[in-house]
């Protein structure tokens, strides 16, 4: 069953507890973080609105990073986008292709939120969710999370007339459902992130397997054929030698007849 995060940006107060809980719980290197808070401001003094973009993996159902990942290090599981760093070759295609600019290179490999796969798999919650003092974060079955998000939006319409859900449909449906006070652009979040390039499908599902197969077949064929062909060629060579022996000596002074 698909899981999802709920991230209520009308609750988030920018304290960065999630950032550090994630770093500590996942034992990330000191210079690595999966979550980053980015302040946004609209308007001019004193007519301002502002908030934070809680920048982290959106866990797209149709994840571009998974599509472009050549090694399968990035993969979908339980509706979330996992990363097996041991399988990562560090090609950086995910870094380049993510519509949300989430993955970064750390220590030569891709680095991003994997939804605390180990922790959740063992019955816990993602570290960020456990600690969030604002209870802006929740984690659960996606359908329930989505329903909750809709309730939240309905409840805050008075205060935020433009309140909306983000992530129900984007990129095939996100595993990070946002409750936003305003249009996503106000937090620099793309309203409609681009799909994975179509060519990636062709590349991964046709070109790569076909190429791999063709190469293996060619090598195998060449191996078999090579043995036959070499035998033929050796026979030809022997023929020539015998012809030479039988016929007039070449007369080459260096040649020593056996």
């Amino acid at each position, binding site marked *: 069953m698909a899981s999802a995060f709920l991230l209520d940006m*009308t*609750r988030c*107060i*920018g*304290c*960065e*507890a999630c*950032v*550090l*809980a994630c*770093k*500590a*719980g996942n*034992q990330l290197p*000191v*210079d690595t*973080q999966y979550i980053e808070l980015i302040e946004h*401001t609209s*308007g*001019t*003094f*004193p007519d*301002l*609105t*502002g*908030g*934070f973009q809680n920048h982290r993996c959106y866990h797209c159902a149709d994840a571009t990073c998974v599509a472009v990942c050549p090694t*399968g290090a990035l*993969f979908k*599981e339980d509706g979330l986008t*996992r990363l*097996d760093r*041991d*399988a990562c070759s560090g090609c950086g295609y995910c870094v380049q292709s993510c519509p949300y600019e989430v993955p970064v290179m750390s220590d030569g490999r891709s680095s991003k939120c994997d939804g605390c*796969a*180990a*922790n*959740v*798999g*063992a*019955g*816990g*919650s993602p*570290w960020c969710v*456990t*600690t*969030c*003092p*604002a*209870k*802006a974060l929740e984690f659960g079955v996606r359908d329930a999370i989505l329903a909750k998000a809709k309730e939240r939006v309905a409840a805050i319409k008075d*205060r935020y007339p433009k309140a909306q859900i983000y992530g129900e449909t984007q990129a095939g449906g996100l595993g990070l459902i946002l409750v936003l006070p305003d249009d996503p652009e106000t937090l620099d979040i793309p309203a409609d992130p681009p799909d994975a390039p179509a060519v990636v499908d062709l590349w991964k599902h046709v070109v790569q397997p076909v190429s791999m197969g063709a190469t293996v077949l060619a090598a195998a064929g060449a191996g078999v054929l090579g043995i036959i062909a070499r035998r033929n060629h050796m026979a030809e060579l022997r023929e020539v030698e015998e012809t030479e022996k039988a016929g007039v000596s070449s007369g080459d002074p260096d040649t020593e007849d056996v």
Partner: protein
Amino acid sequence: MARVKLDITRRQFLATGLAGTALLGTGMGPGRSNLAMRYPDPPWFATGEVVTTYNYCDMCPWRCGIAVQSVDGKVIKIDGNILDPKSRGKLCGRGQAGVSFMNDPDRLQSPMIRTGERGEGKFREVTWEEALDYTAEKILAIKDTYGPEALAIFGHTTGDFWFTDYFAQAWGTPNAAKPSSSLCLSPRDEASKLTFGFPVGGHEPMDWDEMECITLIGSHIGEDSRNTVMQDFVEARARGAQVIVVDPRFSSAAAKADYWLPIKPGTDTALLLAWANVLITENRFDRAYLDEWATGLDELTAHVREFTPEWAAPITDLSAEQIRATARVMSDRSPRAVIMPGRHVVWYGNDTQRMRAEFLVNSLLGVYGRHGGMYFNKSPFLEAYPHPPFAVTGSSGGCSAEPGEESDVLPLGPTGKARADGAREAFLRGPTAMQELIDPMITDDPYRIAGLVVYGVNLLNSIPIPNRTIEALKKLDFVLAVDVLPQEHVAWADVVFPEATYLERYDELSPIAHKTPYIQMREPAVPPMYDTMPGWMMARELGLRVGLDAFFKWETIEEYLDTRLRSVGSNLEKMHDDGGVIIQEGKPYLEDFVADGETPFHTASGKIQLASEDLAGAGFDAIPVYEPTEEPPEGYYRLLYGRVPVHTFAKTQNTPALSAVYPENELWINEDEATALGYVTGDRVWLENDNGDRSGPIAVKATQRIRKDAVFMAHGFGQNAEGLTNANGRGASDTKLMSRYKLDPISGGGGMRVNFVRLVEGG
């Protein structure tokens, strides 16, 4: 591919441990599980037995109860203790970085005695035996020559009890001080005592659960990331509570506000008086409440008559409509509408009166003792370990201290000297003012202070006019620095005691005055790293060497703690098994006192003092008036400072995990001003105050989020301590730009928002 396969024992453990009942014992299933084997690098909780210990966090003074999880003798993860009324299982970013703080490679690792000149930072490593003997010899010499009062003891952080409170009182010095008093809370708590007869208390007694309107004056919740306050604020707001934020800066909290009042700095009292005016003239105050519980309503009514919103508007740079509208929003929800007592309130030197004005508005709204207003907090019952009478009564105050009774007579030390900070002369009352003890160290007036113990205070990045502090450090006979890190002032010490962090030591129990009074414990998760020692052990070892044996009768800290806990029917083992806290019953509301036929207000009249006879008697205004604050000179901006969520004071800037997230502070300046000066975000500038002191370089943050007459930066950066890899030379120091402060003549607070800076090129 790494996929999780569940192991039942492990699952149960994690379900209870991580999601958290926080009731973990110590024995927890098999060391390795399927989980461990399915992962090439198994998650830490699957690599061995997880041991949980209980503690209260030391990453800020707020004291969240925490559950510390260790595997194989290594501390890995800290979570909020779910049974703790402050943390409720949650924890802020700084608390999460406690492990990083402990593992900071820059930590002091061995006791040291100075070999070079003071300030050079040259030391030789010595044994604890030598360091303690040497220190004892030095302070005894001071005592013999000048009396015990000549030793000043400064302390901060959650371990400050042992030196600043216990040792100081046993030794006999009234010159023990904490920055959390006169450089933070004194004006607020003195104003509260003058108005209500008790201090606000370390945990502001806001009855958040039922609150309907919250007003913040300068409090920047979110950037000031006190865990509980963030939880309560967000929850109240989500429930529909209205939020009014008064701040010259569009803070994170202002961005959540229903009303943001971008007030001109220094004019808050005018706004508060105008609010009082609206509440009274529009008859929007709680007359019944005041009739029963307050005195001075008539004087207040007469006093505020002239302070209309129209009067306040040009002063505050707000509109009269805004002022009137917000007063009405509050009164419509009273008594469930509270102006939150701020925390760091030492701003302009008239701070006790400003806080009084805040409390008067709160009183008009009838908040104290009311549901959804403010509750009466109560300290938990807990007996002290038996000790002989102290040589002097402590007056260091601080946000963690038990509220002491204000006495007309200042306590005297063993040789008859009262504290040297000028209390009763330079200022009226309140705890010992740390910044007022610096001058006596230089001038010997009123008497010589010859020795200084600095426990955990970042001396040169906390007290204004650091050059003056350095002058004092040069003149002292003896300086002992007790610290975890080689902070800037440590270079000026004669002896350095490296302390074990809160995760490596037992400590004094932490009694929390609260709606439900409760007690927290601190037990070590791991033994002390390096050649470090817990503060209690240093204080005891030193005490035994200077003839204070009677105060340190206990052989082990466990014995000390068990004895105290016995008074509440517990002991260390039981308290651990109970989840690390002992919770008692409170007495939060007016009706609880009415039922007992008592008054909750401990003023002389037993009522709220709207007009203060104490102040009038001492020659101050009985009801606050607005006094203009000095304006910045042409070309200068008022220097405002505050918090960022991942740092505390000048303490955490070197912590690797926190430094990685926020390595240096930024200078908030209004975008239009920056443009006019030719700066854009990211440009690096130096700051120069009107005294010519400079600090920097600091990155410009050109933003619409701040008024044009002020600049803002996070406090605690711009440190000059070579031993601090991450903190040294990063950003600009607000403290180093404070060439002056304004003494609050009532509370002794040092107002620090009276410094002006301009942007300059080059250092």
